[in-house]
C-alpha cells in the first residue's frame, strides 16, 4: 500500500512540479502598474526604516542636547520669600511662560511668589502699591510689564530707572549691583523644584502697619541644575613651604636623621591643580582631579652646598567642601584626602648608616657659600641637573634614582588636605579662588624597610580660578 502511495505521489510530483502555463498578459501589466514610483519609494522606506529611525533619533537627541547644553534657556520661577516674620501672606504664580533671548521655545515655568512686607519706602517711592489696607487680594496675576522688565533685565544691567521695584528684587536676590543672568538664579533655591502646573495666585492679606509697603519680587528657581551647570574646572597654582618630620625606627639612629635634616633645605615647592569642581546640594561641592607637586631642595654636606634634589608627586585628591556667597564675594572651606599615584625622586640624600659612621652634614654657614639664585633654579629645572659635584663622595649618599638606594615610596602616600579661603564671582563662567592650603602626608613616604619614617607637611596659598564649561 505504501509503495503504491509513493508511486502515486511520484506521478503527481513528476507531472506537476515543473509544468508551466503562461499567465495572461494582464498579470504583468498589473505588476508593472502596481510597482510605480510611489510604491518603490514606500518599499525602500519600509526596508530601511530601522536605519532611518535611528538617524532620526540621533538627530533628535543631538538637537535636544544642543538645546540643553546651549544653556540660554532658564527655567524661571517666582518663589516666595519671607523676610518679615509679621508677614504670612503668600501667593503663588505658576506656569508662567517666558521667552528668553532669541530662544523661540517657551517653557512652562513653575512660579511662585510671595508678598513681603518690608520697610523699603526710600527705594520704591515711585511705586504706588497697595498698602495700609485690609483689602483682600484675590486671583492676582503677574504684572506683564514686570515680567517683561525682568526678562529684559536678565540680560542687561538692571539700572532700570523706570522700574526701581525690579532693582530691589535683584539686589535683594543676591546682593549684587549688577544683574547678569546668573543673578536671577538664587543659590539657595537651585535644587528646589515646584511641579505645580498652573497659574495661580492666592493671598490672604493682612493690614499693613503704617509705613510698611508690600511688594512682590521674583527670582527663578532651577528645578535641577544640569551637570554642565554644576561642573566647573578648577585650576590652581599653589606655592608652598614644606616641612619634613622624620621618625627613626629600631636600627636607625636619631643622629642620622638629625644630620639629614641639617643637610636638606627645601627651596621651592609648588603644586599645580586641575580639578573637576562639582556642586552638590546645599552649597556643598566635591573636587577631584590631579595635583602635580614639585619640590626642590638644597643639599649641603661635606662642605659644599648644592641645589640638587627634585621630587615630583602626582596625586589624585578627593575633597568635600562648602561654599557660600552673599554677593560677588564668597567663601569656601574644603577638606579631604589625596592619594599619590606616582612619585619620582632625583638627587641624593645622606645614606642610612649606624651611629659610628654617620656622615656629618656641613653646618649651614652664616654666610652661605652658595646661595641659590632664581636663575640657578631655572637652570637646574631646565637642565634637570641633580648631579653631585666632583668634591662630594658618592659612598656617603644614597642615589634617589637608584631604586635599591631610594628609601622613598614611588606611590601610595596619602595626604590630608584642608583649605579655606575667599571666592570672587567674576562672571557667570569664571570664579577666582584664593585659599590658604594645608596638607600633610598621613602615612610615611618611606618604604617599609627604610628604617625611618618621614612625612611632609605643605603650607601654601592657592591662586586659582574656576571655569564653567
Amino acid at each position, binding site marked *: 500500500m505504501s509503495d503504491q502511495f509513493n508511486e502515486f505521489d511520484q506521478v503527481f510530483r513528476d507531472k506537476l512540479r515543473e509544468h508551466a502555463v503562461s499567465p495572461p498578459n494582464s*498579470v504583468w501589466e498589473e505588476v508593472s502598474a502596481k*510597482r510605480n514610483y510611489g510604491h518603490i519609494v514606500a518599499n525602500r522606506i519600509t526596508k530601511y526604516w530601522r536605519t532611518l529611525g535611528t538617524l532620526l533619533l540621533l538627530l533628535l537627541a543631538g538637537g535636544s542636547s544642543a538645546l540643553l547644553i546651549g544653556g540660554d534657556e532658564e527655567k524661571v520661577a517666582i518663589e516666595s520669600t519671607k523676610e518679615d516674620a509679621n508677614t504670612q501672606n503668600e501667593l503663588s504664580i505658576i506656569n508662567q511662560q517666558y521667552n528668553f533671548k532669541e530662544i523661540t521655545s517657551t517653557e512652562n515655568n513653575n512660579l511662585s511668589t510671595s508678598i513681603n512686607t518690608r520697610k523699603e519706602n526710600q527705594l520704591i517711592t515711585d511705586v504706588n502699591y497697595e498698602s495700609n489696607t485690609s483689602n483682600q487680594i484675590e486671583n492676582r496675576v503677574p504684572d506683564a510689564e514686570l515680567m517683561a522688565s525682568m526678562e529684559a533685565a536678565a540680560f542687561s544691567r538692571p539700572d532700570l530707572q523706570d522700574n526701581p521695584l525690579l532693582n530691589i528684587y535683584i539686589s535683594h536676590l543676591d546682593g549684587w549691583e549688577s544683574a547678569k543672568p546668573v543673578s536671577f538664579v538664587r543659590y539657595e533655591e537651585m535644587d528646589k523644584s515646584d511641579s505645580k502646573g498652573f497659574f495661580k495666585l492666592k493671598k490672604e492679606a493682612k493690614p499693613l502697619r503704617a509705613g510698611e509697603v508690600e511688594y512682590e519680587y521674583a527670582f527663578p528657581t532651577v528645578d535641577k541644575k544640569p551637570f554642565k551647570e554644576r561642573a566647573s574646572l578648577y585650576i590652581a597654582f599653589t606655592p608652598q613651604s614644606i616641612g619634613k618630620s622624620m621618625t627613626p625606627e629600631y636600627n636607625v639612629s636619631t643622629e642620622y636623621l638629625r644630620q639629614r635634616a641639617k643637610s636638606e633645605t627645601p627651596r621651592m615647592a609648588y603644586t599645580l591643580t586641575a580639578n573637576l569642581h562639582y556642586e552638590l546640594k546645599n552649597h556643598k561641592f566635591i573636587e577631584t582631579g590631579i595635583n602635580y607637586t614639585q619640590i626642590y631642595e638644597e643639599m649641603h654636606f661635606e662642605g659644599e652646598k648644592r641645589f640638587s634634589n627634585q621630587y615630583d608627586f602626582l596625586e589624585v585628591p578627593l575633597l568635600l567642601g562648602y561654599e557660600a556667597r552673599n554677593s560677588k564675594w564668597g567663601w569656601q572651606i574644603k577638606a579631604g584626602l589625596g592619594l599619590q599615584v606616582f612619585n619620582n625622586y632625583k638627587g641624593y640624600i645622606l645614606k642610612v648608616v649606624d651611629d659610628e659612621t654617620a656622615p656629618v652634614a656641613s653646618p649651614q654657614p652664616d654666610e652661605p657659600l652658595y646661595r641659590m639664585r632664581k636663575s640657578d633654579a631655572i637652570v637646574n629645572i631646565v637642565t634637570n641637573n641633580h648631579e653631585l659635584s666632583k668634591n662630594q663622595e658618592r659612598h656617603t649618599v644614597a642615589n634617589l634614582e637608584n631604586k635599591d638606594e631610594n628609601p622613598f615610596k614611588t606611590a601610595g602616600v596619602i595626604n590630608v588636605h584642608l583649605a579655606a579661603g575667599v571666592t570672587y564671582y567674576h562672571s557667570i563662567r569664571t570664579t577666582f579662588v584664593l585659599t590658604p592650603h594645608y596638607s600633610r602626608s598621613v602615612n610615611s613616604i618611606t618604604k617599609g624597610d627604610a628604617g625611618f619614617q618621614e612625612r611632609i607637611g605643605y603650607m601654601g596659598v592657592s591662586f586659582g580660578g574656576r571655569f564653567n564649561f
Partner: protein
Amino acid sequence: MDEKKLIQACIKEDKSAQKALYDLFSAKMYFVCLRYARHEAEAQDILQDAFIKVFDKLDSFRFNGSFEGWVRRIMVNTALNYCRKSTYKYENIGIEDYQDKVVNSKAISRLSEQELLGIIQQLPDGYRMVFNLYIIEGYSHKEIAEMLSISENTSRSQLAKARKWMQNVLEKLKTSNNV
C-alpha cells in the same frame, strides 16, 4: 544576460530586466499558483502579488541558493497567505465511506497535467494545501504544520484524506472513461 546580471538589473529597477525576469519564471510560477488556488482568477492574483514581492525583496536574495527556488518559496507563501485570508478550512468531509483502493499509478500517468490540476483544484481547501506542500513541494509534516499553523497530526490526517479523496475521484474518472 545571465541570471545574476538580470537580478542586479532588476534591483536597479530596470523595467526591461524585470519583464525578462517575469517572462523567465511566470509560466512555471503561474502553474504553482494554479495548484494552490481554487480558480484561475485567484491564481492570477496570487501570481501578481507574489511577483511584486519578488521585485520588492530582490535585494535580499544572497545568491547562495537557487533563484528559482527562492521565487517559488515566495509564490507558495503568498498562496498560503491567500488561503489564510480566504478563510480556508481544514475539511473533514464525509469520506469515511470512500474505499481504500489505490488507483494504479500508470493510469494516473496517462492523465494530462491539466487533468491532474483539475483534480487538485477540486480538492477541498485544506486537503489541497497539504497535498501540494507535501506531495509536490516536498515539505515535511513538521514544516507544513509550522507553515499552516496546524499540528503535525492534522497535516498527516489531511494528507491521508486528500489521498483517499483523490483515489476515489480518479477511480470514478477511470470508471467513466471505461464506460
